């Protein structure tokens, strides 16, 4: 049972899959067909029902109606255990490996039958033999926590193969990988489908990956099947149309040229701070952002971007170095942020920029609630002023909320982000620091938020944008830095930026 990769790929079909949660229909009569040995992509926005569908297929949910066929035979899948017995496995978006165990320990313990006392000499020999037949090489004796993201993702896939799975669901497998790693992993997986060892169903929203690797696609929107077909016969435009239907998409302002004499707003010099583990330091040699430009910082998560951002936001102590805003030292105090017009949009805004249980109106007033119209501090807070202010912003930024008095945590992700954007972009903004602003949002929200950031830039704000989404950086930035291992290792103006070179620097190959 350990790694019987000789098992041939299986084909999987769903017929009329329907899933209701109470009155809400998450999945409505979806039939898809994934033939044995094919590489199938499942496209759709957040909330389109992609994960509901695969969870029904893998036995995590019990569909309200619908059937599953494996190799043409009807099967009943009541639990993930049943699914794995049929050779169906899933690689999750977030790693399911145990960080403090080694690769070998992770593989052995995930097996169905593990002996009470593990004979490591025997297991190691069996694993070495198994790895010889694998397309990728991996160190199995180091702790998973010490592996790079790409290696972890490969280990996740290897784990599924080791368990004898021949149909794999990959849930956005490349979201944590560099472009180079993504190419490699998907390429290897595709080669295995070509040889008939594996069938793959990949959830994705990256069109270029789908075009490069998948054979067929299925598109879901709002729980319904809205399109299917061969990748070779579809353009990106057609796929996008299937995904988002006919909702309007905010257009990006055209980029106003950066004026020649634009003043330098943010200057960071030899900034040093301990990272999350306390074992390494991040070291930002020199970074400046001028008024009217967006400077992007690319990097794989965990390379110090978060710590850098926390230092700028005043959440992390620094060991040395200078942060200057418009020439004066900046320590992220409330008064400094106010006089220097620094605004901040962290990632996961509900967690990092909101008090989730306070109302929408209160959250939107965080920057201004203690000031009167003339900008002087007040002793008594007027709730009516807070409400009026919030009502204006909600209108202006199209925040969809049941009422101004609802807790902000009741809003959808896109609307929380809109509310935070409204708070941060209102008034004079000289410096805007943004991190992963569009993570997990749907198409129209993404387009609108990017448009707002571009508008702020064109109005003269200096923008520092950190993002794990390279496409976003390429779309918005005027200059791109690459952060790797706690330092800025590469800088390029957008005109000369190449995904290839940036990816290599992200992976630290230089």
């Amino acid at each position, binding site marked *: 049972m350990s790694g019987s990769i000789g098992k041939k790929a299986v084909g999987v079909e769903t017929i009329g899959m329907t899933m209701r949660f109470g009155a809400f229909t998450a999945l409505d009569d979806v039939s898809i067909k994934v033939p044995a040995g094919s590489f199938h992509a499942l496209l759709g926005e957040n909330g389109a029902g992609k994960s509901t569908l695969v969870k029904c297929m893998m036995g995590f949910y019990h569909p309200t109606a619908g059937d599953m066929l494996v190799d043409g035979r009807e099967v009943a899948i009541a639990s993930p*255990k049943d699914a794995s017995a049929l050779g169906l496995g899933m690689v999750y978006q977030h790693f399911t490996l145990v960080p*403090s165990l080694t690769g070998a320990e992770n593989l052995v313990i995930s097996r169905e039958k593990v002996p*009470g006392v593990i004979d490591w000499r025997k297991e190691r020999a069996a694993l070495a033999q198994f790895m010889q037949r694998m397309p990728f090489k991996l160190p199995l004796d180091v702790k998973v926590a010490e592996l790079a993201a790409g290696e972890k993702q490969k280990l996740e896939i290897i784990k599924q193969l080791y368990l004898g799975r021949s149909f794999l669901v990959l849930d956005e497998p490349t979201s944590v990988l560099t472009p180079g790693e993504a190419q490699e992993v998907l390429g290897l997986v595709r080669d295995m489908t070509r040889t008939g060892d594996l069938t793959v169903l990949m959830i994705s929203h990256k069109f270029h990956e789908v075009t490069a690797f998948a054979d067929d696609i299925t598109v879901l929107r709002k729980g319904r099947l809205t399109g299917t077909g061969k990748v070779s016969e579809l353009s990106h435009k057609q796929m996008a149309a299937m995904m988002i239907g006919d909702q309007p998409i905010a257009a990006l302002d055209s980029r106003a040229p950066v004026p020649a004499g634009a003043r330098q707003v943010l200057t960071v010099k030899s900034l040093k701070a301990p990272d999350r583990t306390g074992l390494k330091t991040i070291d930002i040699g020199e970074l400046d952002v001028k008024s009217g430009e967006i400077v992007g910082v690319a990097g794989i998560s965990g390379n110090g971007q978060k710590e850098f951002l926390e230092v700028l936001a005043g959440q992390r102590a620094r060991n040395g170095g200078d942060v200057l805003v418009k020439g004066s030292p900046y320590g992220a105090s409330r008064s400094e942020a106010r006089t220097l017009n620094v605004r901040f949009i962290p990632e996961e805004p509900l967690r990092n920029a909101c008090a989730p249980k306070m109302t929408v109106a209160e959250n939107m007033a965080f920057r201004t609630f203690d000031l009167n119209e003339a900008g002087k501090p007040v002793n008594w807070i007027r709730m009516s002023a807070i409400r009026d202010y919030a009502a204006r912003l909600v209108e202006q930024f199209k925040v969809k909320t049941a009422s101004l008095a609802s807790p902000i945590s009741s809003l959808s992700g896109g609307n929380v982000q809109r509310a935070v954007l409204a708070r941060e972009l209102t008034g004079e903004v000289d410096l805007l620091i943004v991190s992963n602003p569009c993570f997990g949002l749907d198409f129209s929200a993404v387009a609108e938020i990017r448009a707002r950031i571009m508008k702020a830039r064109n109005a003269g704000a200096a923008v520092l944008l950190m993002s794990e989404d390279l496409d976003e950086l390429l779309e918005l930035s005027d200059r791109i830095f690459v952060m790797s291992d706690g330092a800025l290792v590469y800088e390029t103006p957008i005109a000369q930026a190449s995904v290839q070179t940036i990816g290599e620097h992200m992976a630290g190959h230089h």
Partner: protein
Amino acid sequence: MDATEIGLWGVPLAILGGAIRVSTPFIFVSLGEAITERSGRINLGLEGTLVFGAMTAYAVAVMTGSPWLGLVAAAGAGLCFGLFHGWICKFRGVNDIAIGIALMLFGSGLAFFFGKAFIQPSAPDLPAIAFGGWSNIPQVQAALNVNVLFLIGAALAVFLWWAFRNTRAGLIVRVVGDSSDAARAIGLNPNTVRLLATGVGGALAGIGGAYLSLYYPGSWTERISSGQGLMAVALVIFARWNPLGCFAAALLFGGAGALGPALQSVGVTQGYYLFYAAPYILTLIIMIATSSPSRTLAGAPGELSITK
């Protein structure tokens, strides 16, 4: 028994003897807590379990005349306490630390209530092995009079260290402690594993309690534990959740605890009370020295509520 016969050599010797004698409850409680914490839960109630275990062991030994039956009863009582903690903690929104504190008070209170009748009678002791027979110096003989539970504790530490790597149960505990999601993905129920791990941890703490009342100090009083159960929790963190580290740390704490009496025995008459506080000061120093505001503890189980 005049300590001045061997002069200041009495101090390290007394510390060695003390380390062996005093450390045993630390060893059992900290090994138990290491198992519980490795599974991703923290049980602060072990102080109460320790006291209740001490009372149970003493009572059963008095009634049956067998210290070993007392030991088994203490382990059983500890198991019940542990399982109770584990069972409550599986409910949503229950905080393991708060429950631990409640159980600590509950265990001690219950022990005082049932233990009133056993303050007077005397129970048979757990046997010790005299390793000091080769010497004719009484201090050496006293120091090397080693209780069997100490030896069992040492063997248990080695066994756990081996078992965390080489047995299915050990790997399962580590998986659950590090990532509930990963555990569910491979078909394990984290609550069940934690329930059992907390139960085993409680049983070991009960054995630690039995040692207190049946060997050293060797009688049941309400002040039998001076916070060993709580210090053992600190000790597990200091030992980085490693069973061998727990053993070494327990010896260190035991030695520190013996410092006061040792100095007193060589005639230091002033300030030795300060040295009675050595274990507590040591706890404080270690906690400060090994913590940092800007990084998480290395080796900490990922699911532990204090390190999240």
